[in-house]
């Protein structure tokens, strides 16, 4: 991992960003997101006839003067949004310069930071080897964010990838409680679609961040090679030449397009990232453009 995943410059660029969430939030904690429940915010919602027991202070006297009836002014409530950041920490994420894992942790930190800024509640969960493990939970303020940063920086990569099993094993995600950000290279034999479908089943707003390394987007291979899978140990022999690389790029494009199309069909936000890209720029430009951040 090269350098710290979060620094002041990075923080300053993300200060005004927050994760976009269009639907009303219905969590039990107060926060900065509009909720369907009535509350005491300054945002007017509706009128209602006075009932016995209502607070006199909420009676709209102007309405009484006009209609000679008591009407109560209703205001919207604001609730806290739950943001689940699922970061793939399998062995395959350790590749690249900087590594995909570094980029994933940097993104996770960015999303966590944005959630703190918008009074949301973030949690970071690592996915590897078919299981999920919380890295940092209950990130609601800067102190907890900094504690989380330390854990993110220290998070190791190990094991294989089985996104569906790993996502299903996440106990903290409750139906309809917020946003799930999935950070992965999606190099998974068992596929990513079941995992996304499961998250959608839980009525999560899903943001899929597909992280690839420069070596994967522009491989620099040549000659007779035995390629060994870092997670399974399986190998295949190839003669890497112009033709092979051309076919590889086509396969990569097909795979990426497939992910994009799938996300589009399911209403999942899709953000492709190369690990050597400037994460802040990615979020500000492509993330903003894709409607992931606001």
């Amino acid at each position, binding site marked *: 991992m090269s350098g710290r995943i979060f620094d002041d410059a990075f923080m300053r660029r993300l200060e005004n960003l927050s994760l976009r969430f269009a639907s009303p939030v219905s969590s039990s904690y107060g926060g900065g997101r509009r909720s369907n429940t009535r509350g005491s915010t300054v945002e007017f919602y509706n009128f209602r006839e006075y009932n016995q027991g209502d607070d006199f202070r909420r009676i709209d006297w102007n309405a009484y003067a006009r209609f000679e009836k008591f009407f109560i002014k209703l205001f919207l409530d604001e609730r806290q949004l739950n943001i689940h950041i699922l970061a793939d920490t399998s*062995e*395959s*994420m350790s*590749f*690249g310069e900087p590594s*995909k894992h570094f980029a994933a942790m940097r993104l996770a930190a960015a999303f966590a930071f944005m959630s703190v800024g918008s009074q949301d509640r973030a949690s970071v969960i690592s996915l590897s080897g078919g299981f999920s493990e919380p890295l940092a939970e209950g990130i609601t303020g800067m102190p907890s964010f900094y504690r989380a940063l330390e854990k993110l920086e220290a998070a190791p990569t190990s094991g294989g*990838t089985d996104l569906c099993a790993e996502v299903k094993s996440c106990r903290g995600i409750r139906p309809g409680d917020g946003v799930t950000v999935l950070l992965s*290279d999606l*190099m*998974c*034999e068992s596929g990513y679609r079941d995992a996304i479908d499961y998250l959608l089943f839980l009525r999560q707003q899903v943001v899929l961040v597909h992280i690839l*390394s420069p*070596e*994967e987007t522009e491989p620099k*291979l*040549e*000659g*007779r*090679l*035995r*390629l*060994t*899978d*870092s*997670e*399974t140990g*399986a*190998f*295949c*022999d*190839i*003669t890497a*030449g*112009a*033709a*092979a690389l051309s*076919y*590889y790029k*086509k*396969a*990569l494009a*097909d*795979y990426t397009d497939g992910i994009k199309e799938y996300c589009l069909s399911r209403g999942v936000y899709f953000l492709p990232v190369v690990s050597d890209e400037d994460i802040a720029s990615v979020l500000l430009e492509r993330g903003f453009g894709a409607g992931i951040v606001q």
Partner: protein
Amino acid sequence: MEFLNPWGLLSLLAVPALIALYILRQKHKEVKIPSLLLWKKTQTMMEASTPWQKLKKNLLFILQLLAVILVALAISRPALKSSRFADEIIVIIDSSASMRAEDTPGKTRFDIAVREASAIADGLRQDQRMTVIAAGSTVTPVISRSESRYDVRAALEGLKCGLSGADLENALVLARSMQNAGETVEIRLYTDSDLITGETDLVIVNTAKSRENAAIINLSCGKTESGAMALSVVENFGKDREITLEMLCDGVLTDAKNVECPEGTPVPVYWKNIPEGTKLVTVRTASSDILPDDDSLSAAIPDDSESKALVVSESGFFIQKAISAVSGLAVYMIDPENWTDSSADGYDLCVFDSFVPDKLPSGCPCWMINPTKEFDGLVPVTTLKGSTLSAAPTELASELGEYMNLPSVILARFSEAVLDDSWETAFLCGEYPAAAAKKSDGRVLIALLFDLHDSNLPLLKEYPILIQNMLSYSLPVMTEGDGVYETGTTVDVNILAYSVKTYAKLPDGSEVTLAPPGRASITLSDPGVYILSQDIERRTGEETKKTTVTRYLIAKIPADESAMSPVGELSDEARADRRADGKGQLELWPYIAAAVLLLLCAEWWVYCRENKL
């Protein structure tokens, strides 16, 4: 195609070495990557889009393998033998009897050979020459070094297949002698013989396809107490089969037999019940085969008429015994006192020992031994003391003295005689004639100018030899030998005494006159029976007796030709000029070297492309 340097093929050992090198070298560089997910898809796509991908992976190896093989081929110097590359083509066509075999109905082997030679003639280049040699019993250049394909074709069309054997060896010697130094010559031999040859510049085209032939290889007739009988020998050169044989007596079918004939085994067949008076017996196979010329054979039954000789002598015991022992003539002896002019009638030979009749018999040859008085240009003068005999420098000396050791003959005394020019001296005793002979009026006279009792001749082995020589000179048979000849043989015909006409009836029924004029001879071109006849007109007193002497000549094709494929081997002389310097052929190594160069370029290009050099 042949390899001028076959040892060069050992270079092919580099092929397994290259393969071993590849197997040992074939190590992949290990690269750890995040996941094989995309690379497996890549591999699937590559194999789906390019089925030869696996081959393409080894393209370098294949190119190198090809280069090694081609280099090995180039070292072994392959060469194409083709008449297209020769300056001159010499075609030898076997025109022996076996080439008349029809392996396919209507087309003889000879026809096929001529057709192929014509095809070569049609393909002659402008600067190419062609020679055609017919190899029969004699070797005949049909056309020599012709650049005109039309002339060659015309010469080939005029070729005829003979009925004799083939002198292939001399034909090859002739062909080799026609080669010019520095020129490439291809010799093509069309034959049906299984020649064993290691020639590099000799192309043998075997026109034989079948061996299914049966032949009557021998037939002889004789007389026994129970009558005439014949012995025929039939041989089957093809697969085992039953052959039906027929016997014809003077052209009339008399008998037939079925004979089991195993392959390659002569089977004797005896024929009896030959009608009395039959002169000619013919045995033939009932069914024809690929070579009909040897399917029948004839033989004459020996004539039992007896020849007689008359010895006029007082004590001619030696001469009587010698003549009867040597010739088989019936010898009769009379005393000189009983001699009359008609005593010699009916005799084929008269021998006068120490007696000279007043008038020599005109109808038969006479031997005059120790003549006591003048006769027919020979005048005895006196008796001289003798010594050893020697040969006179005349042709007669070689005829009468053949196989004799004349110096071993010692004369005690002999008669000095004066001979006129009609006489030819055979032997000399000192410088005087001791034996002489002459031919007059179709009659032979031989004179021995000494008494046998005054010499050691009767005690020597030279005595019967001399008698035989004298008989041969005096009583010539029409032809020498047993009367059976191979086709193509030219037979000299002896003109008998008092012969006025010599003629022959050929197998096809036509008749030709052989003499007069000049010496007679007949060439036995076709197989079959030649009936040779001489009309004899012998004067006896005022009367002229006319007789006809007949002899059967049997011509048959050589036994080797019936065997269809006699195995032969060329002599060293025929091989003498064989060359192995690649002339008459196109060496391919320059082309292969060029191909190797191209391959190496391609290999370099593929290498650069794969490794992005």
